[in-house]
């Protein structure tokens, strides 16, 4: 296993978000982590990156415990993240953004090669290399974010909602790029609310609901599993019974 989370709980200061989450990502896999917003998906990625402290459980990368490492050490270990909403350095040029992605690499030559690779993969970015990142369109910005994260040649790439705020056609383009990344370099953990888009390219998937893993399985099975829709929009059975009880209390007190 390349990435392994065992019984991880974490959160922001006083607000617990993840409860007892276990998941793993194998070498060369694309794994999708889906769920409605507020389920804790971004928190999970930020926990892996060391930006959010774990309160319990362990995180291992290539067999090595990384749960207590600071973020720079985790980046050096070979994990990179494409953050939610891209988080580009808006007043820096596209090229400078990409160079920031190679911050941990000391070898000038390999940085130049990596830059060329990114421009080959995203030709539009070569044209825009001198432009300020904030002047780009949403889709182009997402390309910069992905290119920036892969500049360091990470062995594991974490993507946080790459579809966010993008038109469906652009989403499809980005997803194709992510598939191409796998053939190039390896492992991808993609967090998405857009279940269809993510599961369509993934090998396996996890469904996160209220900070817990609610479902897991092969991507093509999850795609047709009705329980996935319930995890987003609620339903009748199991722990959804709360909904019915709330309704009856409301009827009893308010009469409607």
């Amino acid at each position: 296993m390349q990435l392994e989370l065992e019984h991880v709980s974490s959160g922001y200061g006083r607000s617990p978000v993840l409860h007892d989450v276990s998941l793993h990502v194998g070498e060369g896999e694309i794994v999708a982590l889906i769920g409605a917003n507020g389920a804790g998906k971004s928190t999970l990625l930020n926990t892996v990156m060391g930006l959010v402290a774990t309160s319990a459980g362990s995180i291992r990368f290539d067999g090595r415990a990384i749960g207590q490492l600071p973020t720079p050490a985790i980046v050096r270990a070979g994990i990179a993240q494409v953050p939610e909403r891209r988080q580009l350095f808006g007043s820096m040029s596209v090229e400078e953004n990409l160079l920031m992605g190679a911050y941990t690499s000391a070898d000038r030559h390999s940085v130049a090669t990596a830059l060329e690779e990114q421009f080959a993969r995203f030709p539009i970015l070569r044209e825009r290399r001198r432009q300020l990142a904030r002047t780009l369109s949403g889709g182009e910005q997402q390309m910069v974010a992905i290119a920036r994260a892969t500049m360091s040649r990470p062995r594991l790439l974490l993507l946080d909602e790459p579809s966010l705020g993008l038109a469906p056609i652009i989403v499809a383009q980005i997803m194709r790029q992510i598939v191409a990344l796998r053939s190039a370099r390896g492992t991808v953990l993609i967090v998405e609310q857009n279940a269809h888009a993510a599961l369509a390219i993934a090998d396996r998937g996890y469904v996160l609901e209220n900070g817990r893993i609610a479902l897991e399985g092969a991507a093509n099975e999850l795609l047709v599993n009705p329980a996935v829709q319930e995890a987003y929009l609620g339903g009748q059975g199991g722990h959804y019974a709360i909904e019915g009880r709330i309704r009856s209390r409301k009827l009893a007190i308010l009469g409607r």
Partner: protein
Amino acid sequence: MDTTVLLQLLLPGLTTGCVYALVALGFVLCANVSGVVNFAQGEFVMLGGMAAAWLIGLDLPFVLAILVATALGAGVGALQEFLTLAPVRRQPHFIQITTTVGFAVVLRGITLIVAGKDALSLPGFSGDGVFFVFGAILPVQSLWVWGATLLLLLGTFSFLRYTNVGRAVRACSINLQAARLMGVNAERLRVIVFAVSGATGALAGVVITPLVLASWDAGLTYSTKGFIGAILGGFRSPATAVLGGLFIGLLESLGAGYVSSGWKDFIVYGVLLAWLLIQGGVFLRGRAGAVTGGP
């Protein structure tokens, strides 16, 4: 207006403006990476001048004294961030700023004890001669000040623009979390920036000392004037902060020439107050920051 008289005011104003500009630059750089307004900024200038003069008084070779003074500025800057600011990083903002005020007072005090109450002087780097620009008389040392400032500005801006670490400094001030995700160690970067601005300030103090004397209590003036320059420049962009600092130097010199040297500070501070009152009254009537969405 007589050009010679005007030049005779503007060019020395430019010289002191150079020092204010470097202090303003330090203010903005430190604030950008650490979020703290470092009120000890001007003390680095004082420290550089005093250290160089004091060391030369001990018969240290000229160049060595300058190097030691600059290194001292860098060391003290790094020490300030590491010893006094890192521990209060999670405290409210005003506590962090107050800490820098306290640190400034300590620097003044130590200098007073070590070097004494009297102002110290340095000879001009290439003699105490003068030169003429369209009839205006200037000490040769002015050329050293201008040259050193130009070099320091070029150095700082190339550092920010073309080096890996400099880019990271800018990245941190744009988006700290994203910079961390790139593997940037923000804590170490802060120490580096404080060291750089300490060294810059100290070197500015060394080159200006032959013109204005160095004294243990001079730092406050450099701090306030550099700070005012930074505020006039918007307190965000290093380049406009430099312009703001130069402007203050020119304003002060013109005030001294056309009004009186006693009132020049009044004019500079008055301009700041007026600017703030106008800004607070007319512009920037923003709302309290919006609540941002969470995870």
